[in-house]
């Protein structure tokens, strides 16, 4: 037996009046169906049945005003609901024909989505589809457990929605002739134009010479694998150390103004594929260990390729290294990155038979990991002897890693 009580319609409402009963004793009523109409001093409204069952008693007559919480009627629920008795003790008429059936067998499904006041809950995907199509979900009938609106229901509703009238405008049947299959490269990109101007200006300005030296990288190869870094990091470190011995190469030459720089701000050329290349600068590279240089090189290369470099990242370079050897090329004549006075080219490390001399002076042929370092330098700022000494220093450092 479930009580139907005078509902609390608002914080300030203390009582309500029965306007009409929608049911009689003995009527079957479903949960949430209106059982009575009531009125307060503020609003008129309806009282929903709190449970399904048979109306057993009506305790408050029409026009009576009672306090909030007063029991208005009682509903007999479940299999135990028996035909109610009227005042004279006879079974009430309507109920006799319709023996109250047990309420539907309890479902094993998750709790029904319909709560007491008719509010429905919707799954995230249903809400999203409704929002995308501007659908009022109250209009959609559900086929899931307890009338739940499923994704299928809302999709079916979308499909059944009236199709918009086709536009009056008819598309012209004209189609342009197919274009011949050539790739239109368009004009040069801004980056290509800038690289071109910069390189041409360097060749027009500097007296560019290139010197090469062969270096045995076997020790570097072993060391770098142990450290998990690239050979470029070792070459960078050796270059920085060689610059300390030959500071004349760490400089800018602008017109006739030659400026030697104390810090080594090392530019590393990074290819951006078809777009071009960029030279981010590792500032104060002389302060970094091999591991530190490796990490910084990796970082600037990554940011360069992600187009995340800031203007600060590409300014102030004093010496540049270019290392395109990953494709197997072994020599190049790089163009000096103005206004610097030299650029080092580091290409592929390849295994070659070389003559090695042991401590006793005996020669033999061994397989060593070799590379050719190329230095393009500006004959206005220095001479060939210095560039050769510089390369020899790098060689000595790399071969004694």
């Amino acid at each position, binding site marked *: 037996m479930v009580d139907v009580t005078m509902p609390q319609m608002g914080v300030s409402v203390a009582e309500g009046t029965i306007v009409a009963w929608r049911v009689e004793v003995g009527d079957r009523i479903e949960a949430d169906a209106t059982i009575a109409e009531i009125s307060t001093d503020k609003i008129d409204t309806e009282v929903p049945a709190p449970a399904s069952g048979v109306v057993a008693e009506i305790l408050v007559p029409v026009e009576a005003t009672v306090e909030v919480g007063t029991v208005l009627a009682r509903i007999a629920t479940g299999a135990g609901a028996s035909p109610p008795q009227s005042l004279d003790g006879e079974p009430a008429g309507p109920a006799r024909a319709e023996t109250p059936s047990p309420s539907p067998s309890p479902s094993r499904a998750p709790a029904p989505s319909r709560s007491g006041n008719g509010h429905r809950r919707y*799954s*995230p995907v249903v809400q999203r589809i409704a929002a995308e199509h501007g659908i009022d979900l109250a209009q959609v009938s559900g086929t*899931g457990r307890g009338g739940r609106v*499923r994704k*299928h229901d809302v999709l079916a509703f979308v499909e059944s929605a009236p199709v918009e009238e086709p536009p009056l405008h008819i598309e012209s049947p004209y189609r342009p002739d197919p274009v011949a299959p050539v790739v239109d490269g368009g004009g040069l990109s801004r980056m290509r134009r800038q690289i071109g101007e910069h390189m041409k200006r360097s060749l027009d300005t500097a007296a560019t010479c290139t010197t090469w030296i062969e270096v045995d990288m076997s020790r570097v190869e072993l060391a770098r694998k142990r450290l*998990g870094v690239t050979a470029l990091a070792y070459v960078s470190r050796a270059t920085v150390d060689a610059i300390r011995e030959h500071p004349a190469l760490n400089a800018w030459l602008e017109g006739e103004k030659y400026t030697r720089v104390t810090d080594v701000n090392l530019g590393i050329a990074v290819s951006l594929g078809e777009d071009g290349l960029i030279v981010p600068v590792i500032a104060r590279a002389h302060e970094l260990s091999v591991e530190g240089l490796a990490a910084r090189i990796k970082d600037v290369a990554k940011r360069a390729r992600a187009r995340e470099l800031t203007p600060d990242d590409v300014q102030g370079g004093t010496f540049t290294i270019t290392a395109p050897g990953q494709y197997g090329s072994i020599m190049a004549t790089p163009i000096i990155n103005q206004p610097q006075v030299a650029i080092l080219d580091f290409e592929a490390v390849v295994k070659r038979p070389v003559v090695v001399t042991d401590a006793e002076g005996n020669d033999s042929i061994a397989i060593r990991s070799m590379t050719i370092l190329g230095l393009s330098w500006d004959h206005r700022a220095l001479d060939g002897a210095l560039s050769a000494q510089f390369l020899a220093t790098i060689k000595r450092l790399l071969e004694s890693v």
Partner: protein
Amino acid sequence: MPTLTYLQAISAALRDELRADPNVILMGEDIGVFGGAFKVTDGFVDEFGTDRVMDTPLAESGIIGTAIGAAVVGMRPVCEMQFSDFISCGFDQLVNVAGKMHYRQGLAVPITVRLPSGGGFSGGPFHSQNPEAWFMHSPGIKVVAPSTAADAKGLLHAAIRDPNPVCYMEHKHLYRRVKDEVPSGVFETPFSARVAQPGSDLVVIAYGAMVPMALEAVSDGLDGASVEVLDLRSLVPLDEEAILDSVERCSKVVIVDEANATCAAGAQVAALIAEKGFESLDGPVVRVAAPDVPIPFSPPLEAAVLPGVDRLREACRELLAY
């Protein structure tokens, strides 16, 4: 393309790798002269010798520790745990040494640990477990679990060639039951998921032995529903993109683990979906897994504990009706 069993595919991958790379060595208990408890390495010792197919003492910690040492100097050892359950004896070496070597010292540990796992043969609590989640929880270790013979071969090639420690979960129940076409020669299967059967109403997410079970469970279409089966193949890394793609298309998800439910691989998948797939869901994320009990010896009890076709079908039907 030759048709191989899951077990033959594993053997073939090991043989191909041994032939291709002199740095590949096998280590394990009775894998040499005896050919392995499941005969995966039957005859290997004749072709490759006892230096490359090594019978080890019954000491998993020693097997994995030795493998780590060999790996950091350039070898590619493949360790067999006779049963995946025994990995607990080698746990410290795998989790603390192998898994953290690169983080601590920058060194690669390219070892593969083969873990014959799973139940279904009355092996009882020490020979039937699915310990993959232990290693998912430990950074630095990859975990893969093939469900077909082709993937068994491709994933093993990829595992051996991966620079990281890889736990290779091979399901004993599939050894001789699963048979499919396997490309010959070396090929690497990426550590990503695979749609085993496409569908649109519900997706069953599974890996290892639960994949053929799921395919059987939904083979009759489950009352006309279109059910997808997603084979994870790799648990670390977990293919988030494929999982979320299936969830977006199907909106209802059942995740199956043969492992004990709590903190299983499926729990991680469920958490991922709750976090990143919420707006695609049209029902609760449902899990089917073994209860948190040891695997019983008794055949009827074991059948009751392990997720099977009936339980999965029931779970799918319930969710489809939701």
